[in-house]
């Protein structure tokens, strides 16, 4: 049985991280590598959060928040992903299953979060339309009011999203953990292949037009291998 009140802190912090994506203050605490670590830390296992966060960060490299484009919302989703990994490890069962299931839940939550951001933008537009006359009259209270309504609605969106994701994801993750056969090598390979493909595709798109990018990438790869061998 899920204790609703125990999920409330996650929802409240998830709301703040969702707010950071676009509305305020965009200091990128909403990036997966940060938000998932916070989620994990809230369960007492920051490292569990970070490992989900690193996978989601690799995936997020390919989704940059360009203007009006639609993209996954990583803030609330990554907090949920990191927290779910920590909770799954507490529940018990194979560690590789916990990581895979939490990462999948984080990705699905980011997808759902992206949809809620489109709803929020439409809601903001409807509010702006309703007070267009006051805006054209230069009414400061209306302008400030619109900003505050947008902030509040976005925070509420993040809170509800985090809560719903946690409520929906915990039962299937627990079922999954009960049935998961321990396959650490295969699970690790699947997770790294997925993260690797998406990240490699993203950095190619981002940097391939840069002069000597192939040589720089290959030089980096060489340095990386040397570090791996040394360590």
């Amino acid at each position, binding site marked *: 049985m899920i204790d609703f009140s125990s999920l409330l802190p996650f929802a409240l912090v998830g709301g703040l991280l969702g707010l950071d994506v676009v509305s305020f203050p965009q200091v990128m605490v909403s990036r997966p590598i940060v938000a998932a670590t916070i989620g994990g830390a809230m369960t007492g296992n*920051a490292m569990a959060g970070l490992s989900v966060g690193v996978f989601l960060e690799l995936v997020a490299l390919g989704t940059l928040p360009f203007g009006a484009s639609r993209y996954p919302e990583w803030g609330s989703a990554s907090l949920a992903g990191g927290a779910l990994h920590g909770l799954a490890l507490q529940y018990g069962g194979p560690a590789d299953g916990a990581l895979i299931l939490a990462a999948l839940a984080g990705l699905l939550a980011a997808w759902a979060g992206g949809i809620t951001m489109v709803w929020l933008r439409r809601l903001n537009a409807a509010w702006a339309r309703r007070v267009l006359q006051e805006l054209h*009259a230069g009414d400061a209270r209306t302008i400030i009011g619109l900003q505050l309504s947008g902030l509040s609605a976005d925070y509420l969106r993040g809170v509800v999203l985090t809560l719903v994701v946690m409520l929906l994801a915990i039962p299937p993750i627990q079922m999954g953990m009960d049935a998961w056969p321990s396959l650490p090598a295969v699970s690790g390979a699947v997770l790294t292949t997925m993260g690797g493909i*998406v990240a490699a595709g993203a950095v190619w798109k*981002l940097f391939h037009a840069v002069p000597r990018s192939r040589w720089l990438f290959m030089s980096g790869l060489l340095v990386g291998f040397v*570090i791996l061998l040394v360590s």
Partner: protein
Amino acid sequence: MSPITETPGAGPSVSGSGGEIPLGTKLSMFLRLLAIQASWNYEILLGNGIGFCVEPALRRLPGGSKGLEYREALARQSNYFNAHPYLASVAVGALARAELDGEAALRIERFRTALCGPLGSVGDRLVWAAWLPLCSLIALGVFGMGAGPILTVVVFLLLYNAGHLSLRAWGLHVGMTRGLKVASSLGSPWLRRGPEWLGSAGALASGIAIPLALYRIGGADHSPVWLFAFVLLLSVVGGLALSRLPARMEGWRLAITGLALYVLVTMVR
């Protein structure tokens, strides 16, 4: 003549005739810039946010916040506007300066329209496509080299926000200082060449960071080396293939599909 390419000598002096803007007002504008996108929407995009950020400076217009000039200026500044949220600070500073200097309304409106394009494209290329991925990759590299949660997160946040907050502060300062002549500042070498420099650093960092991060999250202790080498090869080949697929086949969708299939197969077996 485009209002963004003012000829030298045209318009007000660089320091402006509207007087110095007090530090408290500048601070208030800077803090408001952090919430510039709070009411972002598909109708007026960043428009309301611009009005919100310029508002503290407009109180210094003749008649104060009850005056007609204040209301007219605020109405002008709350119309449709689009820009990168960080570089919108340039617009906020320049528009505040222009209003306080008493520039003609038509001139301000033309200038405002002309600013949208450059501030959007420069910001997107500099921040979203270069600075953010570079900071992400550095944090992934730090993690891959064995750093714990606190160090990884602190490195990312300090590095990213050193650039982020400096850019916002620079934009506000340069906008307020130069007013309608701010276009020349947008042509500075670090803004024009910055994306390329950061892109070079990003290409190098991605070669180092991605394999290291993959090695660590893949469970380095229980995976044979040949499997990791195969995963890396598959990542490079798959990444190149993914980058050539239609835009709708985005990486995150592929990741969801791949992981969901793996979970299904594992549970059904």
